[in-house]
């Protein structure tokens, strides 16, 4: 007589949980794969990275973040913004979405330029006023990117 390796109680619990898991896993649908969803995601990612650069710059200026950690954080932001830049550049969209893509890319490149400036300031141990001015511009750029992402999300 063959004996099932799992006792009956275990099989019952698993069967019930499988049904619940399937329901949970398939509930809800995300716009993440639509072209506008992908553009909105890139804008949101770029906004978060630009905001990270602003925070890092302020912490570095106030001597709260050691220089290796500052360099690494700014280098991470540079890498991620570069990834967003290339995914936006290669995005295959047209019409209204292409116009949105160009606007996001324009703001993202402003952020990239500011980031280069920020890294120079950190390397030169620039004064608080100068770094704060760049941090404010980074923050403003992040806000613009976030708004662009939200507009895309709202328009579907």
């Amino acid at each position, binding site marked *: 007589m063959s004996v099932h*390796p*799992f*006792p009956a*109680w*275990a099989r019952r*619990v*698993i069967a*019930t*949980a*499988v049904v*619940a*898991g*399937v329901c*949970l*896993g*398939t*509930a*809800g*649908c*995300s716009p*993440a*794969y639509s072209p506008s969803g992908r553009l909105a*995601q890139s804008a*949101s*990612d770029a*906004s*978060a*990275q630009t*905001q*990270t650069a602003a*925070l*890092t710059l302020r*912490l570095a200026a106030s*001597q*709260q*973040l*050691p*220089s*290796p*950690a500052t*360099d*690494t*954080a700014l*280098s*991470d932001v540079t890498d*991620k913004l570069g990834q967003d830049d290339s995914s936006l550049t290669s995005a295959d969209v047209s019409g209204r979405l292409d116009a949105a893509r160009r606007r996001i890319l324009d703001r993202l490149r402003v952020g990239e330029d500011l980031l280069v400036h920020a890294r120079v300031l950190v390397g030169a141990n620039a004064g608080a006023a100068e770094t704060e001015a760049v941090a404010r511009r980074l923050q403003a750029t*992040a806000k613009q990117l*976030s708004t662009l*992402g*939200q507009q895309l*999300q709202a328009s579907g």
Partner: protein
Amino acid sequence: MKGVLGLALGVLTAIGGFVDIGDLVTSSVVGSRFGLTLVWVIVVGVVGICVFAQMSGRVAAISGRATFEIIRERLGARVGFANLAASFLINLMTLTAEVGGIALSLQLATSIQPTFWIPVAAVAVWLVIWRVKFSLLENVTGLLGLALVVFAVAVFLLHPDWKALGGQLLLQSPSQGSETPATYWYFAVALFGSAMTPYEVFFFSSGAIEEHWTPKDLGQSRINVLIGFPLGGVLSIAISVTAAVVLLPQQIQVTSLSQVLLPVAQAGGTIAVIVALLGFVAATFGAALETTLSSGYSLAQYFGWPWGKFRPPAKAARFHLTMIIGLVIGAGVLLTGVDPVQITEYSVVFSAIALPLTYLPILIIANDHDYMGDQVNGRATNLVGLVFLGIITIASIAAIPLMIVSAAGS
């Protein structure tokens, strides 16, 4: 006095050894995106790991044998192999993530690229496993991991709005801001997977054999688990809170380890950052040791090879070779340039998928009189175990659909 010190040491190492790269990244990602609305998942995960870790420790102490030996014998070669394959692959993924975590932490401390640190970390892990006694490696990394308490201190230094934070703890709608219900549940599964990573029970159970536990040691092991793990969970929550207080209001979604550090810098400045970095290195290095050992344990125990650090390496050659191959694969994958943080995010989700294969056999064996005698699970333990088996299975089944629907939480 010696007994009290031993007990304290066990609890402290359990706290310091609880957090790994999965907890560091996932807790911070979740805090920065959902505030504290997913803290309940950490609590559920910690209860789950306590239940099953003490169960697997008891099985090892009573039977004198580790998990995989018994799983193969009790459930047969085929079920045993399915369990081994899933656990080994997830473990390898986690090992890769941990070695990447060491490299990223050292990059934060030195600004030298991780590609330099990856081979250094892999060789260091191998050397420590080869040369250092089991109890020493467990205690030193566990105690240094306590440096992560700096996150709990940072919470208070940030002077958060406690009332607002308390409000976030209450169960809220999964749809928040730009986050969808699918993303919320995807991260709930990831957080659960990071709290209940399978290697923790394999390491715990095999460690019991390494340290020659007997039924007399069960009391201490229970205290280590039931006090140490929940306090370790508090560290995970503290990481989430710092991200919720500093990063969430600025809409900074965590995608790199450097961002996990920023709230600590804001709260405590350079000194706090140095302590946190020590904690990062200790936590990831300790977990890399555990996952490397777990890869050797699982394969050797399934195939019946001699295993354990209590044996000279020459007498457990295949056990040591498995670990070396695991480290080479992990370092090799990382050197291709893949992002260790992404590996971490996927490893915790795939851990969740494999959870039933790890925890169901433990529950079955802990109920088997042939192995456990009169130390089989009591009714209360079985009830909690069954509830968790249900939760684990739901998380496992839902993980892949949620990953697809939410585009891996993006």
